[in-house]
């Protein structure tokens, strides 16, 4: 894959977020567990927020990414790889979300190699950092909800 401009990169990123949003939407529709269902719906909203942020950057309304620097716990690396079932639980849903954010991060990291100039590279780095932040936030929720006593 090759990008010629920042706009192109951002368009791609927007499409990624939309894809993710559709993915969560589908899972929300299919889940029977009320909690998982509500969680996926929330994630649809999250992805829309990300999308809006990217669009704002594209149109110049936002100058760049501003990660909060949520610390990484490396939880994603440890936990198993659940797949979607209709009776999927919140716990598994959270792991799926964590993994998706991690995948997205790795993708942007990988794309960096193909960046033509410094500016492109910087925007890809920004996108990668943003996904890493999302991953950390998912881990943090997992930590608070699932591992209350651990």
């Amino acid at each position, binding site marked *: 894959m090759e990008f010629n401009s920042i706009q192109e990169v951002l368009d791609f990123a927007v499409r990624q977020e939309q894809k993710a949003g559709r993915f969560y939407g589908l899972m929300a529709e299919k889940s029977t567990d009320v909690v998982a269902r509500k969680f996926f719906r929330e994630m649809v909203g999250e992805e829309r927020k990300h999308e809006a942020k990217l669009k704002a950057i594209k149109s110049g309304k936002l100058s760049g990414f501003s990660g909060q620097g949520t610390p990484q716990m490396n939880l994603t690396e*440890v936990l198993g790889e659940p797949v979607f079932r209709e009776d999927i639980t919140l716990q598994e849903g959270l792991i799926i979300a964590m993994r998706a954010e991690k995948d997205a991060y790795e993708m942007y990291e990988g794309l960096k190699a193909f960046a033509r100039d410094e500016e492109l590279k910087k925007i890809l780095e920004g996108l990668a950092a943003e996904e890493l932040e999302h991953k950390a936030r998912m881990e943090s929720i997992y930590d608070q909800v699932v591992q209350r006593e*651990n």
Partner: protein
Amino acid sequence: MSLKHVLQPFNAWVQAFSKPYTIPMKDTMRPGADRYRGWHINDVEKCVGCGTCADICQNAAIDMVPVKDPVKGDSGLRPKIDYGRCCWCALCVDVCTTGSLGMSNEYTWVEKDPEKCRYTPGVDAKPWDGSEKGWRQEEGFSLIVKDRVPMPMLDPKERIKTWAEVVVGYSVEEARKEAARCVSCGLCVAACPAHMHIPDYIGAIRDGDFEKALDFIYDNNPMPEMCGKVCTRRCEGVCSVGIQGEPLAIRWLKRFATEQFEDFAKVLHPEVKRVGEGKKVAVVGGGPSGVTVAYYLAVRGFEVTIYEALPQLGGATFFGIPKYRFPMPSLEKQVDLLKKAGVKIVTDHRVEKDEFRRLLEENDALFFGTGLMKPYKLGVPGEDLEGVIYALDLLRDHHVGKKVEVGESVVVVGGGNVAIDASRVSRRLGAEVTIAYRRRREDMPADDEEIEDAEAEGIELVTQSIPLRVEKLENGKLDFIWGPAEMVPPDRPGGRPKPKLIEGVENHLQVDRVIVAIGQKGEFEWMPEEVAEKVVTSRGWVEVDETGMTQWPGIFAGGDLVNSTADAISAIADGLKAVEGIQQFTLEGLSVSKS
């Protein structure tokens, strides 16, 4: 009379030429002695506004005035001293629970405005604020008693052989002596989720009036014997006596009061108006929140039926908390009072969707406190292997009388009360026990004393250990594989520090069972979809308003499902809130809406 006696007095003149030994002015301006009792100073950060200084001041020179918002453990008040009344006795300094109050060695101060001679030390700036000298508390003299009357306990070596209660309980003398340590500051009342009348019942115990103590206790806690044995005692955490000494044994004193009576119904004198006659309320779930709602509504004349899936009421305090901490007879005593108050109890009865709908129809209000009945999973590979079990299942099976086996060695994953209970039960079942916890010892949600008790019983604690996976070994045992963690700061203020896996290191532990106790969650399969959709959040909790009511008018909820603290007393507090909410809701004439 001789000439000598006429002349001798003239010796006084000699003095006219010698250095005067009356004190010159400049000497009187010297600072006071090192322990002089001069103008007060107060380290307002250390002071917790307990008001003990104001209590002891016999001149009523001290007013407690608000200087900031109250928080748990700090009333937000600080002593303001009226120097028109103060007699400089320094009793306030000597009694100060935190040691924050002192007196400087400054004693001169000229002020035109008499109003200024009332000031709040440490808040109203004064030149002597930083004074190092003056009267302070000193080792070897105390007006309050800092050491707790020790609680007799069974010997660890003996107790792991039985299910007998570990804590023996205070004798009358011990209890009254312990109760006499209280300074009645009331910080505990604010910290207790149910705002129990702590100084009042402690005072009654001190005075030997145990009936009165029980009356105070039952005013807002229908399971006090349970709380007296297993409560998380947030009150003790803020006890002002505990700041420089050991906190009052509030939990043990409550326990003592309840243990004095075989039949509560004979000694309680609840003063209530039976306002709820003719109103019907269904309670689903017989845990502490449900019991609270049922009891207080029943004494107010409501017709209450409580439905419980298990054979006994009590919820997690029945099926979760082991009997060596909270024995059956104690639980039965409290359930007995519930019956006598007129509550209909239906046990072994799990409410399902259709019945729930019917109960909604037939009652004026419905409360559910169905708790966190399902364990969260470990989430790592190998979890499905035989031998990986859940603490909640182990405890429940054990407590409803099913046979349970744990083999010779177990590892319990988790650091809460559930983990500790599963460990100590496993120990009593004969196993060697290791607890693997992801954070540090001080981060463990379990009660400190519980952790100590577990260690005394020979249970090993491995902290900062992150489970990686479980494998089956050829010898039939399980290989519990874990990696070490480093701690990173929490992402929000006041949050728990986080463990971060140090990658590349693997440790092995051979065990017969891996017992998972990392957290519990609510279960909503029994709940009609239309209700669940409305009341359950995306984190698996239930949201209620300040009256305890969910988004669905007429449906109230409380307990572990609702609060973030997940302990018995918070469940009781939720129940109390819902009692008021339900009374308000039903007496305003609204019926349960089906919207």
